């Protein structure tokens, strides 16, 4: 884990330095044309899919953070360690969103996932307060092996297929997205909000009802059932059945 952190930090610092160094000469020719119209404040930013070495290093660093965190989640026994791996994964994913010019969603990702949802998970882990015994059931080891082979095959096929994905209009897709038709900066709060409250209005209202139902349902489920009901004995809670053992002579 420490090794991973050191590698990611080194890649990050090197990538930032590299992308700054490469961004410097690119600023010069823009100075003459900048006078005319309203120019997006992000126009001078380095493009992502254009073969910039510093940007590539940043991409690999954040990809390593997100994939490493995800692997941490599915391999750790300790639940708190798994949640912390999840937080690292979400931070990496949010940085990747930033590279894709989704500034607003990047911040939402950080606030909602790395902030709110992970705090919820930590709370529940603290409530349960039980160390996990064995992550993978012994009877499932063969199934897990088959699943691993299947997943590796799928990864291979997917990588082969997805690496060939070409943008419909390469020149437009490589250039920085400028302004939306409404004149807002692409990926900003205003642009996403205009779209959300325009053609996305019905899903937005549906989401509000879904959240309301979820809140009511969560309270209804997590409430103690009946106070007068006898609390289950320790054997019942653990699912231990002693009747067969006692009936034997």
């Amino acid at each position: 884990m420490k090794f991973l952190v050191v590698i990611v930090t080194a890649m990050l610092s090197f990538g930032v330095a590299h992308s700054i160094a490469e961004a410097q000469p690119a600023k010069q020719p823009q100075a003459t044309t900048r006078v005319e119209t309203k120019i997006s404040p992000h126009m001078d930013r380095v493009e992502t899919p254009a073969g910039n070495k510093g940007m590539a290093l940043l991409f690999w660093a954040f990809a390593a953070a997100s994939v490493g965190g995800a692997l941490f989640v599915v391999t750790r026994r300790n639940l708190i360690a798994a949640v912390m791996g999840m937080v690292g994964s979400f931070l990496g994913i949010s940085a990747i969103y930033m590279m894709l010019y989704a500034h607003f969603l990047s911040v939402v990702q950080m606030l909602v996932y790395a902030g709110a949802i992970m705090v919820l998970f930590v709370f529940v882990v603290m409530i349960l307060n039980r160390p996990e015994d064995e992550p993978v059931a012994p009877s499932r080891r063969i199934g897990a092996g088959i699943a691993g082979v299947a997943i590796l095959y799928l990864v291979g096929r997917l990588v082969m297929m997805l690496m060939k994905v070409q943008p419909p209009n390469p020149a437009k897709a490589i250039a920085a997205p400028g302004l939306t038709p409404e004149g807002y900066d692409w990926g900003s709060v205003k642009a996403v909000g205009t779209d959300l409250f325009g053609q996305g209005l019905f899903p937005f209202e549906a989401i509000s009802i879904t959240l309301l139902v979820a809140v009511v349902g969560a309270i209804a489920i997590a409430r103690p059932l009946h106070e007068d009901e006898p609390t289950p004995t320790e054997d019942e809670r653990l699912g231990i059945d002693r009747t067969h053992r006692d009936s034997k002579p």
Partner: protein
Amino acid sequence: MNDILFNVGYGHFLVLAAVLFLIGVGGVMVRRNALIILMSVELMLNAANMTLITFARMWGDLSGHTFALIVIAVAAAEASVGLAIVVAVFRGRRNVDVDRLTTLRH
């Protein structure tokens, strides 16, 4: 090789999303703790979101961002209900091992 390493294109983002999704699938299939399974589901939702945002950037269409926002809201609702169920199950049975949850009553 150099091209794959230093020429980061849309394919890289899509492959990263696919890898995250498959790690989530593996977690759901292999792990027994209900909390870890919920976290793996969150991971899969995030991978789907990343694909949406990559294609939004690729086509220059902001609808992908809108839909990703809606997916985040649904994920939050799913997490709250799922965790409530986990807490309720734990209260009755003192464990959240999905292999040992064989009955609906407690």
